[in-house]
């Protein structure tokens, strides 16, 4: 205890000394944290706006099911992912986001919990006995020994009863990926080109309804979308002036800076480079794609990477084209170690080029699931290019901790570092 206290003093001292050395430096940690919080607010507000657009498109699909209204709803979902993926850098380090994010972006999922699946999906598994529950087709069922009445599919049923049912994380009943499944259906093309091919008639009325229970499917999609809107609205509020997330970041300047660094490093290394990209490649498994139903994984990776860069350089371009920016972590690092700032900025830019190469290949017809195929050298090189760049930038992110003398802060208050769950879970 005493030792920690003394260490605290000695670091305060080192910081004081470096402030003297760089007296002309106008950037304060507080200003950097304000930028970080303001960008978070803008990103979650944009995510909310885009989710409301999605909600309207889903409303139109359910009211007048057609190929056009389904296509419009899919387009709205894809657009909604752009701002949201850029928020992911806030997950690690900010306990309030980490505790909440499972509601909106949980993945991977056993989609058979929600709706019909292909025979190749299999039934209940050793890991998850509700993997093929199919709530859309079953108004009543037993869950962990309890009789459940699901005749009315409501946001509460999804969030309180079904989500993570039986304590299994793969029972994802809410959020972007549940909605994605309901809009696209399973992608049955394996590592060949092509996304899910759900027909609009899965939402048709009367006799035109395919695969049964179209009204319940529509109710599920509506409930999940309503829930997404309310969850995003809640998070946007937390980052407004006076909100809890903003207050937590600003409470302690050094801990706040550590929060930024933690978010950047954890997303770069364990989450994106490791679980989301490298693991799927090593398993040659398209189910390991982050946006697997819609084949949007290339964008999901790209905007995650952009979010990490946003957090460092302190700028974000909103969905209306306006720019939010301010004093940044980059400024702070530059004041302490100009070379390190140039190094990290360069690496973040390299990552964007590498993730951009995956994105442009996918957009020109070589989809992400094809890249995962066994023995596909081109795909492997594209994905490993992104992985290596993310791993490389993590090294420089770790150097920031030393450059800013943040050693004794310990990564406290960070759920992802204090109580991380295993990467493969």
């Amino acid at each position, binding site marked *: 205890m005493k*030792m*920690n206290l*003394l*260490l605290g*003093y*000695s670091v*305060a*001292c*080192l910081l*004081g*000394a470096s*402030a*003297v050395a760089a007296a002309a430096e106008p950037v304060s940690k507080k200003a950097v944290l304000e930028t970080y919080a303001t960008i978070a607010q803008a990103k979650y507000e944009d995510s909310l706006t885009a989710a409301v657009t999605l909600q309207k498109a889903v409303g139109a699909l359910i009211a007048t099911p057609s190929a056009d209204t389904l296509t419009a709803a899919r387009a709205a979902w894809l657009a909604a992912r752009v701002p949201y993926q850029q928020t992911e850098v806030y*997950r*690690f380090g900010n306990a309030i986001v980490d505790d909440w*994010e*499972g509601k909106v972006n949980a993945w*991977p999922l056993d989609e058979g919990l929600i709706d019909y699946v292909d025979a190749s999906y299999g039934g209940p*598994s*050793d*890991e998850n006995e509700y993997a093929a529950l199919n709530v859309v087709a079953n108004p009543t069922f037993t869950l962990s020994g309890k009789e459940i009445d699901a005749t009315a599919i409501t946001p509460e049923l999804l969030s309180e009863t079904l989500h993570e049912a*039986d*304590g299994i994380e793969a029972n994802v009943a809410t959020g972007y990926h549940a909605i994605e499944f309901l809009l696209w259906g399973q992608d049955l093309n394996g590592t060949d080109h092509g996304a899910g091919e759900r027909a609009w008639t899965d939402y048709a009325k009367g006799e035109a309804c395919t695969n049964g229970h179209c009204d319940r499917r529509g109710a599920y999609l509506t409930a999940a979308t309503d829930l997404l809107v309310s969850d995003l609205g809640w998070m946007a509020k937390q980052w407004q002036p006076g909100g809890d997330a903003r207050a937590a970041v600003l409470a302690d300047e050094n801990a706040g800076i550590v929060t930024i660094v933690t978010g950047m*490093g*954890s997303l*770069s*290394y*364990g*989450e*994106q480079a*490791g*679980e*989301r990209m*490298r693991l799927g490649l*090593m*398993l*040659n*498994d398209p189910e390991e794609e982050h946006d697997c139903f819609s084949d949007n994984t290339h964008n999901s990776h790209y905007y995650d990477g952009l979010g990490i860069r946003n957090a460092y350089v302190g700028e974000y371009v909103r969905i209306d084209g306006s720019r939010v920016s301010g004093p940044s972590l980059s400024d702070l690092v530059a004041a302490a170690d100009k070379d390190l700032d140039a190094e990290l900025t360069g690496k973040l830019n390299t990552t964007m080029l590498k993730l951009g190469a995956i994105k442009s290949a996918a957009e020109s017809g070589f989809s992400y699931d094809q890249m995962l195929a*066994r*023995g596909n050298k081109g795909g492997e090189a594209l994905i490993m290019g992104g992985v290596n760049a993310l791993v490389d930038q*993590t*090294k420089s992110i*770790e*150097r920031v*901790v*030393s450059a800013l003398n*943040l*050693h*004794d*802060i*310990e*990564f406290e208050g960070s759920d*992802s*570092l204090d109580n*991380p*769950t*295993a*990467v*493969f*879970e």
Partner: protein
Amino acid sequence: MWKYCLVLFCLLSSPVLAGEADIAAIIPKVVHQHILPGYERLAATTATLADVVPASCGRDPEAVKGAYNKAFDAWMMVSHLRFGPSEQKNRAFALAFWPDTRGFTPKTLASLLRDDDPVIHDAEKFRTVSIAARGFYPMEFLLYDDAFTGNPAANRCALLTVMAKDMAENAAAILKDWQGGYAELMIKADNDTYREPEEAVRQLYTALTTGLQFTAQTRLGRPMGSYSKPRPSRAEAWRSGRSLRHVLLSLEANRQLASLLSEEDADVDRGFDRAIRIVEGIDDPSFAGVATVQGRVRLEALQGAITLTNDLLAEYLAPRLGITAGFNALDGD
């Protein structure tokens, strides 16, 4: 005035408190006494396995299992060293893919055998196979699971042979890279991989704490599940009865690394000693007993002791080395 006071205080206090260890001297010790011997053992035992499998498969299953268990033991002594040569070309992943939360391993093995996939007969092409079918964990299925041993497929020995060869090549490649330059990069720490000794020691410290975290959370946490729903079939290598042994071996490996990093600090060692004594009191090799109250309580105590040891390292060893842990693979969700 305030700043001057602080500066003075800092000058007086920090050399004693933070970074007091002679890290430049610690690194070569870790490399020569811990890392290189560990990979030498792994290379030797997997090479033996690659010889024994084609010679004894189908004729002398005990000989195959014996060689397999020796090699797996050797892996456990280096399984926490997830950086540098082991991360190149997915070598460590291809040696040890676990946990397999979505059941890829049995599925992939079954389809390779059923289709008599040409990669079974081509060591070069076998390297393109999913990691779910490469390394120690899928080999365990082929050697111990009834589904594969009960009425063995005609090509099972061919698959085991190519797997063993792949493992030996991976282990040899890791060792070769360590001997052929990586050890020097780490010891010299004047290069872009390790710009200064602090970065090398941070890598080692991160490997240590990540290893302990993995043992507590995953090796123990997965089979423990929740109180109302224990999950013994999620234990690591339960088919071969190695679950508890893996906890013991990984603790011993981490204990050695911690001892070198802490310059044989007695307090650090006591934490490991406590955890290892708990392991030695448990008679439940595959964690089947986690479904009983007593079995669970023992694993909880063990998990607590390991977590406590890790906390001690963060509070005591890290500042002594003048570092904080780096990012690790468990940081995701």
